[in-house]
């Protein structure tokens, strides 16, 4: 089969794979952004047992490879006699989402903590002497300042997340790397071909290009104050 004959078949497969990549990416963001906030509140809690517990969890999650976490989260329940993820692609997808959300929320929590603690204490005091409640101070005064502070480090993490989704290949989630690799082993009459695997890089590159532009715009929008 010539390259021009291969290309449409490969392109089609990679698109399907990348759709799975995108789904994992967005579900992770949707889950990790709020969960990270909860974890950051936990680690900043004045209730010591809670703050120690969260710090230990964050230490474990950040201190071990995401690939190992994927394997443990996917295989451990089955080994313990109860495969809660179910079988097939949907099971792998749910397990991958769980691992990614858990992992990324820990990274996000540290960024949030930096953002929250980076807002000068004078802002809170000014709000208090003006008779505001703690929640008014958080939402009306501190939140936007915090968002402004965390956008650059969050952009970094989000772009890393796009590429990290490829780690879910280890549990055979059928994302774009898996799709590219399938033409090495043999898929729709194409076998022993490695260029589709290399070509997957283009997908990441283009998607990250779009994200970089969007996140850059958000950063620019928040430049109206200092």
């Amino acid at each position, binding site marked *: 089969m010539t390259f021009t004959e291969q290309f449409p078949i490969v392109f089609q497969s990679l698109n399907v794979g990348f759709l799975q990549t995108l789904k994992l990416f967005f579900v992770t963001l949707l889950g990790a952004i709020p969960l990270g906030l909860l974890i950051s509140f936990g680690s900043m809690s004045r209730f010591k047992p809670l703050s120690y517990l969260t710090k230990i969890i964050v230490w474990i999650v950040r201190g071990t490879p995401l690939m190992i976490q994927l394997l443990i989260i996917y295989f451990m329940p089955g080994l313990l006699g109860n495969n809660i993820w179910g079988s097939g692609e949907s099971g792998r997808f749910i397990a991958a989402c769980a691992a990614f959300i858990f992992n990324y929320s820990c990274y996000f929590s540290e960024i949030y903590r930096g953002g929250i603690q980076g807002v000068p204490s004078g802002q809170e005091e000014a709000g208090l002497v*003006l008779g505001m409640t703690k929640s008014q101070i958080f939402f009306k005064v501190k939140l936007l300042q915090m968002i402004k502070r965390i956008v650059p480090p969050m952009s970094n993490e989000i772009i890393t997340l796009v590429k990290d989704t490829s780690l879910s290949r280890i549990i055979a989630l059928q994302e774009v790397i898996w799709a590219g690799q399938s033409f090495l082993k043999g898929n729709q009459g194409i076998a022993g071909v490695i260029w589709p695997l290399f070509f997957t890089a283009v997908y990441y590159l283009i998607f990250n290009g779009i994200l970089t532009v969007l996140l850059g715009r958000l950063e620019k929008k928040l430049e109206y104050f*200092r």
Partner: protein
Amino acid sequence: MAILEVQHVSKSFGNTEVLKDISFTLEKGKVLSLIGSSGSGKTTLLRCLNFLERPDGGVIRVNSETLFDAENPETKQESEIRRKRLHFGLVFQSFNLFPQYTALQNVMLAKELLEKEKPDYKARKKEIHAEIEAEGRKLLTQMGLSERMDNYPHQLSGGQCQRVAIARALALKPDILCFDEPTSALDPELTGEVLKVIRGLADQETTMIIVTHEMAFARDVSSHVIFMDDGRIVEQGTPAEVFGDPKEARTKQFLSRYTQG
């Protein structure tokens, strides 16, 4: 009739006693200056009055209402503190304006949030907003900032920021307006414009407590002066008494540093 009565207030941070047996009164429409070297407890005293710190002992009364009594746990309820704070306004050394809001929005925000809690807010929303905005514009104009209302804090000079902060505190019509070294972060030129505004407020009989290192200003603007050292009130009286004829050796020593310079 004193608007503010402070009796035997004490405060410690760990083993360090920052305020020791502080007592004074302030009449309505008068200006009290707190002077003394850094670390003498002036700022902590202001922070206690504004409920940013809780005293360990003593009583604080405003208009004869007991806001704080160390002996009476009922006066320490968190839920009441918010309401009690509103008797006082506080202007900070570092302004602490909200950077994401314009000068006008900084002045309006707290008042709007308070109005939102009232039952008739929804029905009179537009009207209330217009009132608050008109009041905010009036205050900023009074501060000489009519051209600067829509500027963000980072577009303003330090002196302008501090004047916005003063307008923001005045917007809630506190009984007593406190200043914590309002000009210490400003260069001499900008200091002048802020002091002029405070003097204007004194002329309108705004009740104020001013922590300051500007001795000439304190002498000129205040009706009462307290000199603090090491957490204690060493000497208090009229400016003529404290500056012109100090009784205590420590006061003389402190003031001599300013007259020599």
